[in-house]
C-alpha cells in the first residue's frame, strides 16, 4: 500500500505560503519569529475575522489552500497535531478569569480554546463529517497525526488532510523565558546552526498536507515511514531501531537515504544528539536543517516536512538549507529527523515518486 503526499502548503515566518520553491533569501528575526500572514479577507467573512484568533485564521487559510491544491474537498479524515492548541484564546479566557476573580466572562474565547477547534473549523468549512482527531503530544504531535493518517490509508481511506499547527504569543514567550527556553535577544535565526549556547528561537506556523492512496500529476513524494520513539536515549540503540524499521517497513537500507533534514534548533545540548547521529549513522549522506526558517515549536516538524516536499520535487537543495557541500547527485529519498533533548525522536521518510 503506497501513501502519497498530493498537496502541501505552509504559512511560516518566511515567504512560504503558496510557493513552489524554497525562498533564496530568508527573513532575519532577532527575537520571536511570527508568521508572515496573507490577507485574511480573502478567506473569511467579517464576523469570522473579528471572532477568530490568529492561529485559527492561519491554520484555516493554510488548510484551505492545501485542499485547493489537492483539487478535492472530499476528505476521508482531517487529522491535526498541535502542541499547545489555541494558546491566544486560552490565555485570554484565563487572564480575564484571573483578573476579574472569576467575574462576568464571555464564552467565545473559552469555546475556541480547545485543541480540536482547528480541525473542527476545517470540518465545518468543508462540511466534512468524517474522522476528525487532534493530537497534542509535545514535539511529536504532528508525527502522531501523520502516523494515524498512514493507518487510515492502510484501512482503505483515500484522501486525508493532515496538519501541524502552533502559535506563539508574547505572553507565552515571556513565560518560557523564565525556564530559559529561548536565546537571549538579540540572536538571529540565521545563526542557529553555529550557536554555542543554550536556548532556541521561538517560532510558529501551520503546514497542511493532503495524504492520499492515489498518485497524481501533482504528487510531491511517497510517504514511506513515520516512526516515533519516546525515550530511546542510547544513540546506538536508537540507530539500530531505526535501521531495522527502515528495512522492515520500506525495504531500504541506510545508504538509500540521500538527504537527511535535521531539526537543529540552536540549543547546543539538544543539537548535540543530532551531531552524534549525523556524524556516525549518516556520514555518507547530504545534510540540511530548517528551523532557521520557522523557529522552534511543538509542530515544527510539519514545516520540516513541507521543506522536504519542495526539495524532493525540485530535486534541489538551496544553500541556506545545506550544512556542507553536496556529496550526492540526486535526492531520491529524504529522512526528516527531529527530537527534543534526546526524547520524542521522530523519523519521517519520503521517496521520489
Amino acid at each position, binding site marked *: 500500500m503506497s501513501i502519497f503526499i498530493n498537496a502541501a502548503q505552509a504559512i511560516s515566518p518566511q515567504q512560504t505560503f503558496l510557493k513552489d520553491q524554497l525562498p533564496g533569501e530568508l527573513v532575519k528575526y532577532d527575537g520571536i519569529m511570527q508568521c508572515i500572514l496573507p490577507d485574511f479577507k480573502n478567506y473569511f467573512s467579517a464576523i469570522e475575522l473579528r471572532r477568530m484568533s490568529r492561529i485559527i485564521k492561519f491554520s484555516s487559510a493554510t488548510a484551505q489552500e492545501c485542499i485547493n491544491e489537492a483539487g478535492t474537498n472530499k476528505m476521508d479524515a482531517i487529522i491535526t497535531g498541535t502542541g499547545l492548541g489555541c494558546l491566544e484564546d486560552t490565555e485570554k479566557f484565563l487572564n480575564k*478569569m484571573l483578573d476579574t476573580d472569576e467575574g462576568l466572562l464571555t*464564552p467565545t474565547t473559552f469555546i475556541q480554546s480547545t485543541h480540536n477547534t482547528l480541525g473542527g473549523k476545517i470540518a465545518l468549512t468543508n462540511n466534512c463529517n468524517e*474522522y476528525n482527531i487532534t493530537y497534542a503530544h509535545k514535539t511529536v504531535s504532528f508525527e502522531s497525526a501523520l502516523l494515524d493518517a498512514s493507518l487510515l490509508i492502510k484501512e482503505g481511506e483515500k484522501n486525508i488532510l493532515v496538519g501541524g499547527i502552533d502559535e506563539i504569543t508574547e505572553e507565552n514567550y515571556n513565560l518560557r523565558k523564565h525556564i530559559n527556553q529561548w536565546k537571549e535577544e538579540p540572536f538571529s535565526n540565521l545563526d542557529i546552526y553555529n550557536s554555542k549556547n543554550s536556548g532556541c528561537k521561538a517560532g510558529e506556523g501551520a503546514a497542511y498536507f493532503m495524504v492520499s492512496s492515489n498518485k497524481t500529476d501533482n504528487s510531491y513524494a511517497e510517504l514511506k515511514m513515520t516512526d516515533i520513539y519516546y525515550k530511546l536515549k542510547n544513540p546506538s540503540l536508537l540507530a539500530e531501531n531505526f535501521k531495522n524499521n527502515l528495512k522492515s517497513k520500506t525495504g531500504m537500507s541506510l545508504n538509500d537515504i540521500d538527504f537527511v533534514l535535521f531539526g537543529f534548533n540552536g540549543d547546543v545540548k539538544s543539537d548535540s544528539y543530532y551531531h552524534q547521529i549525523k556524524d556516525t549513522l549518516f556520514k555518507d549522506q547530504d545534510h540540511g536543517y530548517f528551523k532557521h526558517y520557522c523557529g522552534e515549536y511543538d509542530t515544527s516538524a510539519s514545516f520540516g516536512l513541507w521543506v522536504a516536499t519542495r526539495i524532493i520535487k525540485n530535486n534541489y537543495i538551496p544553500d541556506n538549507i545545506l550544512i556542507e557541500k553536496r556529496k550526492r547527485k540526486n535526492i531520491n529519498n529524504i529522512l526528516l529527523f527531529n527530537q527534543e533533548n534526546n526524547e520524542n525522536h521522530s523519523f519521517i521518510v519520503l521517496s521520489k515518486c
Partner: protein
Amino acid sequence: MENRVFVTGMGIISAIGNNLEENFDSLINKQHGISKLDILKTVHQDELLCGEIKLTNNDLLKRLDLPESNTYARTTLLSIIAAKEAFNDAGLKSKDSARTGVIVGTTVGGMDKSERFYKRLDENTDFIQSHNCGFTTEKVADYLDVNHFVTSLSTACSSGANAIMLGARLIKHGILDRAIVGGTDAISKFTLNGFKTLFLLDPNPCSPFDKDRKGLNLGEGAGIIVLEKGEICKNKKRYSEITGYANNNDAYHQTATSPDAKGPYLCMKNALEKSKLKPQDISYVNVHGTGTDNNDITEGLALEKIFENTVPPFSSTKAYTGHTLGAAGAIEAIYSILSIENNIIFPNLNFKQAIPELSLSPATVVIENAGIENVMSNSFGFGGNGTTLIFSKE
C-alpha cells in the same frame, strides 16, 4: 487478518470511588458523587455542584509514593492512579518484551496548576512544563516504565474514547502488542467558568434525559484500560473484546449538535459496521447523556434513528460522576465493560419524565441478569467531535 484486541486490565478514579471496586459498588448502590466543592477553591464554591474527588493533591501523591516536591498537575496524578491500577489488574510488569504504548487523552492538561500560577510566576515556574497535554502521558509512561511509544490527544469530551480507539487500531495494525490507554481531567476554574459562561451547568444534581434537565455537573477523574492483542493474553483474564469504534464530526457548530444529529448518528452507524454487529445485537448503550438540553435531545434522536425505534436499554452515568470531560469516554468505557463483566445495567439517576419529543426513557433501576453481549459507549464533544466504542463479551 487483523489482530483481535482484548481488555485485560482496568483502573479508575472518580467522584464515586478511588478504584474499580469502589466505582462498581457505588454504581449498583445508586451512590452518586455530586457535591459542593471542597478541594478546588473558587468563588463559585457554594453555588455549583460537581463530581469532585475528595482527595487533595498531597493525598494522591502519598498513594503513589511520589515526593511532595514535584511538578505534577492534578490531571496527571489522577491518570497515574488509574494507570497503576490498570497495570496491576492486567498483571503486567515493566520491561517485558511486548511492544507497549501509552496513549492518554485530556482536554486542558495541567490547567489546574496554570490557573494558580499564571500571574504569580515568581512563586512557581514548574507549571510551565506541566501545562501541555503530553506531560501527563509521559508521567504515566515514566511511572510504569514504558518507553516505547507515547502520544496524547485532545479532542474535547471524546478525548478518552479516542485514545482507546487509537490504541486498538495500533494493535490491529501490528504496530503495538499492548496499549495502556484512556483519559484524564481534573476540575479546574478554567473549565468551571467556561461552562458557566455557556449556561450549561445545572445548579442541582443533573438529570440526563429528563424533560426538565437543566445542564451538566462538571466532574473529574481518570479511566485507563489495558488493551492487548489476542496472542499475548490467551492465558489471562480478558474482560471483553473491543469490536467496534468510529469517530465522526458533526460539522455543524463548535459547541452544539446539529438538529438532525448527523455526527452522533454516523459514529454509532460506523462503529456498528466496524464490529459487524446489527443494531439489535447491542444489549446496552452507555450514552453520552450530559444532561444539557441540546445533547440529550440530539443523542436521543440519533438513538431512535440508528435503532429504528427499538432502542436497547440505555443510561447515562453522568449523574453519578459528573461530566469528567477528557476522562468521560474512558470512565464510561470502563462502566460499559463492567456491565458486560457483571451482566448488569447501571441506572440513569434523577430521571423522572421522558423528553416529549422522544419516545424513549433510560433505565432507572439496576437491571441484573440483563443478558449483556455487546455494549455501546458514546462520547461527544466540542468541535463537533463524536466517538462510539463497542465492547463485546468473548
